[in-house]
């Protein structure tokens, strides 16, 4: 057969092979070009898969020709393909950016290791999205997590080490909770294939181990996706990691965790009546609202821009989970659209902040005074992305909020509309703090901002900012596919 039938395996294998190659070949330039090639090939494969899925429907690929439910199945449906495009697309943009960025932030003898870890992290994230096997999800989750801990620890500040250690503890607890949940499901159903578990759960629904599995999985995955009270690892990790790492993680890592949650809820638990036996919907709603308000409020008081936008990430995850909590096709559409939109927006912001750090020597409010005069393009980019976080029409943030509002109105919960708008006002406040520091303060004389932002950093950030606007005007890709995904998950697979 042709290579086209093996695309699902190649999607994961190519970045996986690139990782040891970068270690073996080392050198000054080789690791960069290997991982760059791997990420671009991954993007091409993701786009091809996307096209195949849209033309012919769900692809099932049996690893080693062992048929599912016994063997490991790679299953590409529209949601998977959507995630693959997002993750590999961001990776393909972050890698060219990272070269100039880490030159300034990571000791030269560790550069090749950065590319190794980046390739492994990409492998893990793609693997989580593509696999149809519950235990495989755990393995890929740990591949991506372990490499993420190393990437964060590469930060030049010693607090990066503490941030990495704390994430390691929290992340491992989360992953272990997920394994416990998968173990309980395996005990009750005797299967590890997600779709197969979903079918077999109907016979054992309502039993206590199944409910415990749901609880363990929810808590474990929520730790990974930084749902509000479990978010403590996130701000430190994003603030102290190298800029390229922050932008990649902010755009993809938590989004893939949300994907796992959607996968378990809709492909595994939703087929039976398990979800309705625990007050999942109410709980998710409350945590999402708490996150939207508490995290936005904390963001307002941050003195470091990276921490500010990290807390804003926690708040935005609140919106994503809010969409999920409606348990309606419109709500799910809002969730999936916001996954993409927030990934693009946050990726752009952290890339631009990396450029700011490079030129100004830091990203604290005190340092970036007068940024609007010194780096007009970069600060304009941050403002545009900030508008998207608020949800101003014409940006991607508006599209997500619009669908979120539609979903709330559809549910007849008018008070939620009010709360969503109120939390957007908090976003106005923290974005305004940046605007005030950048445009209404005099530049500090003691910092000389002579360094120029290299093209390799400017171009990828610029592309993401343009994407922020473009997908706010032309929604055929994002909304079109999200609607299809919601139909799929609420329809046949249910």
């Amino acid at each position: 057969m042709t290579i086209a039938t093996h695309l699902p395996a190649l999607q994961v294998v190519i970045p996986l092979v690139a990782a040891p190659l970068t270690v073996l070949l080392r050198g000054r330039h080789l690791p960069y070009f290997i991982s760059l090639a791997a990420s671009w090939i991954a993007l091409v494969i993701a786009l091809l898969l996307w096209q195949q899925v849209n033309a012919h429907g769900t692809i099932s690929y049996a690893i080693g020709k062992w048929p599912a439910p016994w063997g490991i199945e790679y299953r590409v449906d529209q949601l998977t393909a959507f995630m693959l495009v997002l993750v590999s697309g961001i990776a393909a943009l972050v890698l060219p950016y990272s070269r100039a960025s880490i030159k300034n932030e990571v000791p030269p003898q560790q550069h090749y290791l950065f590319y190794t870890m980046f390739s492994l992290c990409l492998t893990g994230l793609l693997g989580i999205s593509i696999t149809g096997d519950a235990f495989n999800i755990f393995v890929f989750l740990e591949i991506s997590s372990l490499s993420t801990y190393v990437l964060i620890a590469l930060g030049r500040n010693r607090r990066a080490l503490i941030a990495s250690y704390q994430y390691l503890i929290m992340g491992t607890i989360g992953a272990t909770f997920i394994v416990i949940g998968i173990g309980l499901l395996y005990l009750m159903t005797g299967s590890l294939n997600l779709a197969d578990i979903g079918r077999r759960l109907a016979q054992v629904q309502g039993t206590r181990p199944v409910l415990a599995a749901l609880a363990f999985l929810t808590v474990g995955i929520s730790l990974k996706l930084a749902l509000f009270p479990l978010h403590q690892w996130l701000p430190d990790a994003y603030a102290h990691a190298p800029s390229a790492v922050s932008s990649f993680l902010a755009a993809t890592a938590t989004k893939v965790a949300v994907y796992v949650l959607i996968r378990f809820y809709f492909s595994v638990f939703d087929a039976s009546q398990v979800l309705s036996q625990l007050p999942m919907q109410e709980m998710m709603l409350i945590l999402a609202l708490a996150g939207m308000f508490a995290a936005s409020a904390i963001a307002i008081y941050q003195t470091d821009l990276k921490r500010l936008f990290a807390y804003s990430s926690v708040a935005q995850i609140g919106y994503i989970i809010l969409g999920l909590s409606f348990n309606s096709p419109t709500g799910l559409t809002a969730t999936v659209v916001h996954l993409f939109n927030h990934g693009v927006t946050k990726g752009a912001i952290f890339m631009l902040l990396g450029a700011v750090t490079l030129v100004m020597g830091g990203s604290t409010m005190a340092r970036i005074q007068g940024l609007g005069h010194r780096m007009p393009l970069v600060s304009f980019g941050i403002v545009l992305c900030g508008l998207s976080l608020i949800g101003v029409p014409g940006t991607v943030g508006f599209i997500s909020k619009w669908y979120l509002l539609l979903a709330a109105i559809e549910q007849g919960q008018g008070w939620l509309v009010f709360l969503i708008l109120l939390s957007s006002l908090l976003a106005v406040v923290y974005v305004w703090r940046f605007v005030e520091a950048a445009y209404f303060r005099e530049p500090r004389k003691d910092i000389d901002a002579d360094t120029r932002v290299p093209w390799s950093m400017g171009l990828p950030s610029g592309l993401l900012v343009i994407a922020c606007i473009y997908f706010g005007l032309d929604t055929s890709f994002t909304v079109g596919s999200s609607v299809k995904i919601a139909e799929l998950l609420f329809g046949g697979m249910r």
Partner: protein
Amino acid sequence: MISGGHFTYFITIFLMIAGLFLVIARGNLIKKLIGLGIFQTSVYLLYIAPGKLVGGTAPILSPEFTIYSNPLPHVLILTAIVVGVATLALGLALVVRIREAYDTIEEDEILAVDSAHETEVQTT
């Protein structure tokens, strides 16, 4: 099911909670990792114990043996052990680096150093 009913589950849950307690209650970074190790190990037991049949052998295709233990949990846990070892190794490596950078591995002392440093940075 193993003789003794839920005996293995009680052990599993005891280890699970003991490990988690260590992670939360101890301020020493090494002790936290020990707790994390115990927590992860308890999960191995959760998988392995239900796969065992009393008198069961390894799954060998032979007319002599008719009762098999389920081999799949062993394979899964072999993977999980590797992951656990990697996590522990990485955690310990981080603690070494933290000790080099801060000269202590007590969490509260590290936080005190950091917050003192932070007030310094903000004024500049």
